[in-house]
Structure formats: structure tokens, C-alpha cells
């Protein structure tokens, strides 16, 4: 098991493998859109995504600039994602729609499932692999590694793991790719530090 790359995105910075890649201006009204523009990607669907899916999309886009995903076949990457607040931001939007605005938007409703973000990654990368989404009280690196082991036992080549959160208080996307090759896994504390970088 080997950690190939880690990446964390916060409203003020992007950190890759523990080093700051980008600092995000604090006066940006829509910081995710700012990151999208600065990455020079052309993917209009981005604008239609909810905040959770946008965070996931930005995460995979940053990782793409770091490593070559084309070495994997379309079924070889498993997606293991988790967060605490599920699809809170979209739930809130849908809830306000029908309680206050007296309307219901189908596209807002569709995003009221957290696993939609893994669908967005799969669509973007044309990946047909295994997907799972968990609701967890907090980021737990051991739990992710357990899940990775399960998939590796079934012959999966790599797992893209992620903790993606979007609620009233915080937004964060922390992704890491683990390959099914020999290698010493970093100590859990170091790994945790690399993945869940604290906001300065």
C-alpha cells in the first residue's frame, strides 16, 4: 500500500503533498469558481454542481495536474468518500425551496445525496469502478485504510479516498490516492497531517 498523492482544498489555500500550491484571495466572493478559473479547466458542468460536487471536482482536477491517471484502466480506481454533514448545503437549499420559496427545483433535489459527488468524479474521469460514501463523525484515517484494504483484496489497483465537507461552518476537500503496490504506508499521524491540513 502506497500513498501516491495527497491534496487538500480550503477556502484560503490548496495544499498538495503537504506543501502549499496556491493561496486563494480572501476577498473572492466565490472562491471555488476562482480556483476553477485558475486551474484552466474547461468543464461547464462545474457551474451546475452543488458545493460538495464542486469541491470534489476541484480536488480531482488538482490531482490530475500532479499525477497521470491514464495509467489506470476505467475500472481500476475505487472511490471511497466520507463526510460528517452529508449533503447539508444542498439539503438546506431544497428545504428552503419548498418551505420558503414555495417551489421545488429538480436539480437542487438531485444533489441532496452525498454520493452524487462520486458520480460526478466517475462521469468526469469515465471511471466505472467501485464507489462508496460514508457518513462519519470525523475524519478517521484508519477507517479509510480499512476500506482500501477491502477493495485491494478484491483486486482493485488504486483507491481515491476523500473527506469532503460543506456546511454552514466549513468547506474542505481532502483527497488522497492509495495504490495497491508494495510500499510502507506513512505513519498514521503524518498521513493525517498531510491529508487534513489545518487552516492557518
Amino acid at each position, binding site marked *: 500500500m502506497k500513498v501516491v498523492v495527497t491534496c487538500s482544498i480550503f477556502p484560503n489555500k490548496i495544499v498538495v503533498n503537504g506543501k502549499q500550491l496556491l493561496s486563494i484571495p480572501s476577498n473572492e466572493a466565490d472562491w471555488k469558481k476562482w480556483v476553477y478559473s485558475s486551474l484552466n479547466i474547461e468543464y461547464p458542468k462545474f457551474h451546475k454542481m452543488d458545493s460538495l460536487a464542486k469541491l470534489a471536482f476541484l480536488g480531482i482536477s488538482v490531482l490530475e495536474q500532479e499525477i497521470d491517471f491514464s495509467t489506470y484502466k476505467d475500472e481500476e480506481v475505487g472511490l471511497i468518500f466520507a463526510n460528517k454533514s452529508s449533503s447539508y448545503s444542498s439539503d438546506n437549499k431544497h*428545504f428552503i425551496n419548498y418551505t420558503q420559496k414555495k417551489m*421545488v427545483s429538480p436539480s437542487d433535489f*438531485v444533489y441532496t445525496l452525498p454520493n452524487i*459527488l*462520486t458520480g*460526478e468524479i466517475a462521469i468526469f474521469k469515465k*471511471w466505472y469502478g*467501485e*464507489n462508496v460514501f460514508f457518513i462519519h463523525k470525523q475524519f478517521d484515517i484508519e477507517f479509510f485504510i480499512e476500506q482500501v484494504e*477491502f477493495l485491494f483484496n478484491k483486486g482493485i489497483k488504486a483507491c481515491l479516498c476523500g473527506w469532503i465537507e460543506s456546511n454552514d461552518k466549513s468547506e474542505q476537500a481532502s483527497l488522497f490516492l492509495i495504490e495497491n503496490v508494495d510500499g510502507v504506508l506513512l505513519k498514521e499521524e503524518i498521513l493525517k497531517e498531510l491529508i487534513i491540513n489545518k487552516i492557518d
Partner: protein
Amino acid sequence: MDTNLKNVYLSYGALVTPLGNTVEENFAALQEGKSGIKKYTNSGFTNENWPLAKIEQISENRFDTLLRASFIELNQKVPRTIINSSNTLVIISTTKANIDVFPNDTFESGIEILKNELGVVNEPIIVSNACISGVVAINLAADYIRSEKFKDVIVIGIDVISDFVVYGFQSLYAISEQAAKPFDKERTGITLGEGVAIVLLSSEKRNSEFSVKYLNGSSSNDANHISGPSRTGEGLVRSIQKTLVRSHINKDQIDFISAHGTGTIYNDEMESIAFDRLTLNSKPINSLKGYFGHTLGAAGVIETIVCLLSMEHNLIFKSLGYSSIGTSKILNLITDTSQTQVNIVLKTASGFGGGNASLILIKD
């Protein structure tokens, strides 16, 4: 790849649906061909009278009440020594959990009830992967048993009816005005339902009279659209193929398929294409959505329990609501509940986010 997989046994935990409060009550209702679906006045966003499969005894706090209701049968079917063991894990499969209390943490109350009222020792795990959650949770439970991290895993599939979800599906024009008719020519959409189903996965046989083994399972994404089913059935085809390989089963050995079959035009069409591509057309197949409605995160677990009933009694249930084929590919839908040898079962699920999952069970 591990080819010598450890045994994983399944047994009944609990089943509370509009059709009954126990596995036995549900079994009796299924045999009679009863549906739990009824029309409810003003259940829609603009006061439509949508059909729903609602548990009428529950008046408020639906999620917590329903979860607690399942403990009565669970305590009868699963010994306390297993429920309260440190070698037992609980996995909850749910899409929206206690959405009634939104904007509070909707996933918290279930965990607290399990720990405080049922005395579950280990922190429960929550799988929230749309409509494939139940099958994914059972697959995960088997992974935990095979890794020897736990001796028993209790999988709880649960979701309740809420305005939140009903209005949402209504905005997608996905709700049928009549009870859902999966795979039928006249189908126009889903009927939402609610329920809780509990299945126990164990490293040892927990039921001496009747025993079913879990072989293997998988999931696969369509990589196509976040809410529209794939036009080619690609994800479902791939998931079933992976599950067959991992189970060391030839597709001809399958006796019966428990399909997802929601009753929407596009989902059922997608499933028919997938089964056709795998030349599984002639296998007896059903959807249980005409009995229970679509119970979202509970569906995979409810339907797996019904698979166990089919295996125990060699009885396959008619696909309620179906009368003539309405998909482009012909499937062998079960039109009469009938006796037949059921040794190997394929269970599938598909859902939003492009997810597809499957698993195979075998009679021991």
C-alpha cells in the same frame, strides 16, 4: 485476488414495513400478494394525492420510532450476546436518515439510539450511497467478516417518508399516480415507501434449521449521468460481471434475480438492457417495489430478506403491478407466486449518482 474466501452466513434480523412488523408477517402478506401502497390525500407539494407505502401506526418522529420498532423483533431473532458483543459491528444503510429534524444533524439520532437503547458496543458505520446503499452495506458487512475484524455484522436498512423526499421526486416527475408497476407497459414512475430491515451476517451459522451463505458482491458506476440511468446499462452489467467472477459462479447457475425495478420508464429500461446484455433474460425475475414501494436506503436490505424467504421456502414472489412487458428487452417476470427450487440468487440495485451494486447468495 483471494480465491479461498471465508464463509459468511446470513440470517433474519427484523422487518418492519407497511405489510407487517415481523419477517413472518411480511412473508404472509407477500404470499397473499398484498400491497402496502395506498393513496394519501394532500401528500404532494401542490396537494396531489400520491400513493405511498406508509407505515400508518407511526404518527411522528418517523425515523427514530421506526428504528426502535425494529428492536422488538431483532431482540427475538438475534441473541443479546451477539447484539451487545464487542465482536459485532452495526452498519446502517440510509439515504436521508432522520430528515424530519433537519437542519439538525440528521444522522446523529440513529447512532445514539443504537448505542444507548440497544447497547451496541462499537461505533456504527453509516453507508449513504443513494438507492444502492443496502446492497453496498451488505457487501461491506461481508468484507468485515472475511477480514476477521468482526464475527457478526448487523446491517440495518432504513428510510422514512418525508415531504423533503416526496416533493423532490415530484419535481423530477418521477412519482406514479397509481401504485408503481415495475417493468410494466403502463408504468409511469415510482411509489415512495418506508421501512426498516435488519439482516445479520456472521462468520458462523446462527440458524441451525436454514442457512444461506453470502458469496460475493460489487459495485460499479455508470460514469454517465448523476440522475439519469445509463442507456446501455453499463454500470449494472459491469457490477454483475464482477460479482459473478468474484463468486465463482457461472450465470447459468442463477435460479432467480431480485431486480431493483423502480417503475420509472428509464430505470426499468436500463435494467432490461443490462440483463439482456448478460443473457439473463430467461431467469425468473421480480421487483418488490409494487409491495413495499421504493424504500431507498432500506430497499436493498428489505429485498435481501425477501431473497432469504424465497430460498428458505423455495417460493418466488410475483412481480406485483406487472402484467405485460414494457421494456425493449424481454425479461422473464414472475407473474404468479410459485414454488421452485431457489439455490442461488442474484440481487441487484441501481441509483442516483450512477451507482449500481449486486450480490449473490447461495443456499448452504
